[in-house]
């Protein structure tokens, strides 16, 4: 329990980050409690189609007669899942490549840095679209994969730069003389000393993963039968929700994506302050 408290304490101390943390926790709760806090099933098509907001249907119904509010709450699951899974995987890849490149100067560093630069330069969204378009199966796994492949480079560059400065420290030399393996030195000695940078990389990767997933799903490159915020916007766009005045259906999913993204950015403020004391409030 105390470990959990220590993990969340920095986010609680910073006011902005506290707001972010609370929003994220509410969303996690909504995802877990979805069946309890929604009156219907997300796939129940027995309601009249294209209803506006009412007491029975807070956010109206879809073109297939599903309840939009129920879909929104269940959609939290998929959006959190994709955001966190892709965020974690992209960070892991960034750690592996960034840390190894930073620790091994010379040929290894040159090759890995070159690879990082190539992926930094290739525009993300078009590459994601192309990858998703060639793939024979659609779904969350594909989206997670595509976002991971295109999203690790920025983190890798930042982490590599940090490792090159930590590499020369005495405790690293000590570990080397003690005969520790490279992987052990990099991940057990160096990484714990840059944990705030790793956290910032993860939060940044998760935000861009959530936005990218929404974009891909909106383009119809996700599995249209899975409930998620991006897919809801895809259906809203393709069934003319706009021209029928279904404002709640259009507004709600995008607002949730924006709220989740903002919450993670706010949490990042706390991490930034840990890493860069200059950003701390004066006095």
């Amino acid at each position, binding site marked *: 329990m105390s470990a959990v408290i220590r993990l969340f304490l920095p986010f609680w101390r910073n006011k902005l980050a506290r707001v972010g943390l609370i929003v994220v926790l509410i969303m996690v709760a909504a995802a877990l409690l979805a069946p309890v806090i929604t009156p219907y099933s997300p796939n129940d098509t027995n309601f009249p189609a294209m209803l506006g907001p009412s007491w029975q249907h807070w956010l109206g119904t879809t073109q297939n007669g599903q309840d939009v509010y129920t879909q929104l709450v269940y959609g939290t699951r998929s959006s959190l899942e994709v955001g966190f899974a892709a965020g974690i995987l992209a960070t892991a890849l960034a750690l592996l490549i960034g840390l190894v490149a930073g620790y091994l100067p010379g040929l290894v560093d040159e090759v890995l840095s070159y690879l990082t*630069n190539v992926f930094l330069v*290739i525009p993300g969204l078009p590459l994601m*679209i192309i990858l998703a378009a060639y793939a024979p199966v659609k779904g969350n796994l594909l989206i997670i994969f595509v976002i991971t492949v295109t999203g690790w480079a920025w983190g890798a560059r930042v982490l590599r730069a940090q490792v090159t400065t930590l590499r020369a420290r005495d405790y690293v030399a000590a570990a080397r003389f003690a005969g520790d393996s490279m992987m052990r030195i990099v991940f057990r000695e160096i990484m714990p000393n840059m944990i705030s940078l790793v956290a910032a990389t993860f939060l940044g990767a998760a935000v861009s993963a959530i936005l990218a997933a929404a974009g891909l799903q909106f383009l119809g490159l996700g599995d249209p039968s899975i409930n998620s915020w991006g897919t809801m916007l895809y259906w809203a766009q393709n069934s003319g929700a706009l021209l029928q005045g279904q404002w709640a259906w259009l507004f709600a999913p995008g607002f949730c994506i*924006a709220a989740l993204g903002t919450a993670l950015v706010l949490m990042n403020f706390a991490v930034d302050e840990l890493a860069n004391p*200059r950003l701390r409030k004066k006095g």
Partner: protein
Amino acid sequence: MRYLLRRSFMLLLTLWSAITLNFLLPRLMPGNPAEVMLAKFKGKGTMGPQAIHAIKVMLGISNESVWQQYVQYWDNIFHLNFGISYTYFPYSVMHMIAQALPWTLALIGVTTVLSFVLGTLLGIWAAWWRGSWFDLSVTSVFTFTSSFPYFWFALICVFLLSFVVHVFPISGGYATYMTPNWSWAFLGSAVYHSILPAFTILVSSLGGWQLQMRNNMITALNEDYVVLARAKGLSERMIAIGYAARNAILPNMTGFAMSLGFVVSGAILVELVFAYPGMGDLLYNAVSNEDYPLMQAIFLMIVVAVVAANFVADIVNVLLDPRIRRGAETA
């Protein structure tokens, strides 16, 4: 000089890997998209054997070795020969791109420059009056706008300003009864149709520049040379613009040059919302129709533009920042 040579070498290497990636992707994917593609083409009839051969080469189902295909692929690229579009048969891929590119360059180009200038100015102000109500309100609004999906903001704008209040057209790049030409009436219509897309892109991209500039500026204001400028009794304005902002803007210049490269790819999702006839919309149509020749060519153009812009960014940095120039000469 050595720095520039090294950069040029990296540029060529990056270009080569991006183009090779474009060559390998359809060949690595399971399920052979090329066969599907070719079957569809044959359904359309009226394809000369030469055209079919070109498609085979591009997507990798000819009987030649991979190496021969690769050479042929490069040959096609140098001749800008990307074959025929499936979706817009019988038009060539290059024809379709030539149609779409000016729209995107005009819309996204103008908004990118505007967004950079405005965002940078707001960032300077926010950092200078740090902690004031102006800083707090602008920075928190932009923190929110920079993390919302910009296509969603576009949808909301269309709903409010085109559907509820009929101020702007709902979609398209120009009035449907017109054909593109250089008359004032047509240009007026095009500008009128571009206001709402431009506005949504502007609002959702301003935040990034503002937040970045504010952060750079805060760091710069803590530097010793700012203290020195104060000690010399220079005016506040001189300190802010001439000392701090000049240094704080350097990292942003790189980002700006790169974002000019991204102009070619367009704001894919915004163009889709507005059915704006630019590159993003074309790419979307290519993807949803599994038009691989068009898709490949567009991706290629985007990559070349971004890599080139990246190179320009490096050169601009050398010109603006004497530290890099000196560092590069000694390194």
